[in-house]
């Protein structure tokens, strides 16, 4: 695939799928503020995916709604981390923390992309992502220094989630060209920055960051290989759209 399309699909699909997962906390959050926070982040992420699908459309791909709502799981390029069910709040929080730290660093780097339309979108999105990271840090620090039960659960969620989080940085065949053309700094460099960034926050808690080199990343998502959870998500997300794709809302 063309390197720009390859990169944009990965960025946009991550935003859309995690945005949809975040929206599933609507009405279920453990406290009202968290219900609103996850719903707000869902709205932000859907907005970000729309901006990115619009860039794809400008490059000749189908309309954003068509791309978002008519593809099946094997055509999606999101990492598997984003598609896992929301589970318990501890998992959703740790996923949000690990994903959004990478996302903020990713869009800060993309603000200098050689592809100017993407750089413009990134300059907009990176400011909004600061609020996502602020939110994640606040709760990881709060629960990561709270009761024994909280710390045990957060630690377990961290250990379960990390292999999936390492899958964020799975590369595709386009990676060398993405880096050499100045589109993006590349996944390896991003991962290095990410490790530094999450370690700094976790050091302020009672949580322990395992040795990441001993973990096996869960990959495949960037190449259309997904868990059994993605297709049901897509079916539900597109249920109304597919009733009448030509309807004017």
């Amino acid at each position, binding site marked *: 695939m063309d390197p720009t399309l390859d990169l944009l699909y990965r960025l946009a699909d991550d935003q859309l799928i995690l945005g949809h997962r975040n929206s599933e906390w609507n009405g279920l959050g453990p406290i009202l*503020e968290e219900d609103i*926070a996850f719903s707000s*982040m869902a709205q932000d992420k859907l907005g970000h995916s729309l901006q990115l699908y619009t860039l794809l459309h400008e490059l000749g791909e189908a309309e954003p709604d068509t791309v978002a709502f008519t593809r099946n799981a094997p055509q999606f390029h999101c990492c598997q981390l984003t598609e896992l069910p929301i589970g318990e709040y501890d998992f959703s929080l740790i996923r949000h923390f690990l994903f959004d730290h990478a996302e903020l660093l990713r869009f800060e780097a993309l603000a200098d992309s050689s592809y100017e339309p993407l750089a413009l979108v990134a*300059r907009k999105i990176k*400011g*909004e992502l600061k609020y996502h990271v*602020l939110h994640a840090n606040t709760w990881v620090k709060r629960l990561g220094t709270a009761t024994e039960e909280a710390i045990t659960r957060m630690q377990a969620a961290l250990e379960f989630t990390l292999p999936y989080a390492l899958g964020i940085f799975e590369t595709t065949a386009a990676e060398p060209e993405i880096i050499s053309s100045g589109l993006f700094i590349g996944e390896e460099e991003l991962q290095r920055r990410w490790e530094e960034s999450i370690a700094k926050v976790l050091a302020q808690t009672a949580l322990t960051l395992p040795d990441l080199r001993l973990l096996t990343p869960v990959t495949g998502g960037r190449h259309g290989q997904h868990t059994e959870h993605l297709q049901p998500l897509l079916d539900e997300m597109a249920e109304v759209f597919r009733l009448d794709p030509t309807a004017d809302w």
Partner: protein
Amino acid sequence: MPTEAQILDWLQAVTDPEIPTISLVDLGVIREVRLEDDGGVHVRLTPTFAGCPAMDYMRRDVETTLKAHGIPRVTTEISLREPWTSDMVTDRGREGLRRHGLATPPKLNGGLLDLDILEYAECPRCHTTNTELRTPFGATLCRAVHYCHDCRQIFEQFKPI
């Protein structure tokens, strides 16, 4: 034929769909007004937040308002060419936010949006800065929720970004 200044003046009547005390011009959402050779007008808008669901309403209100003033053809465009920052809110806009009971975002002046700035807010009632950020996510994407230790009340702030 009206001037650009005249059109911006007419557009003062178009307010934020959720904050009736601030116009889109003073909010900084309307970035450019351009007169076309055929008497039409082109308006460029930029969203405060990328996922703002109110952009379609804003476009529609801009078009309706200018057509009511006799502009035969109005085109609008949503663009990130000049991405919105809270520093684009004018002084009159900040006054409008306060009248709606919202704290104003601190001025960034091109500086970094760091954690200290995100957590800073002045209470719109008593003007103290003895306040704390309760949650960065409020009733809309562009608002955060803070607590005033002097009033002992929650208040909303238009977020700095």
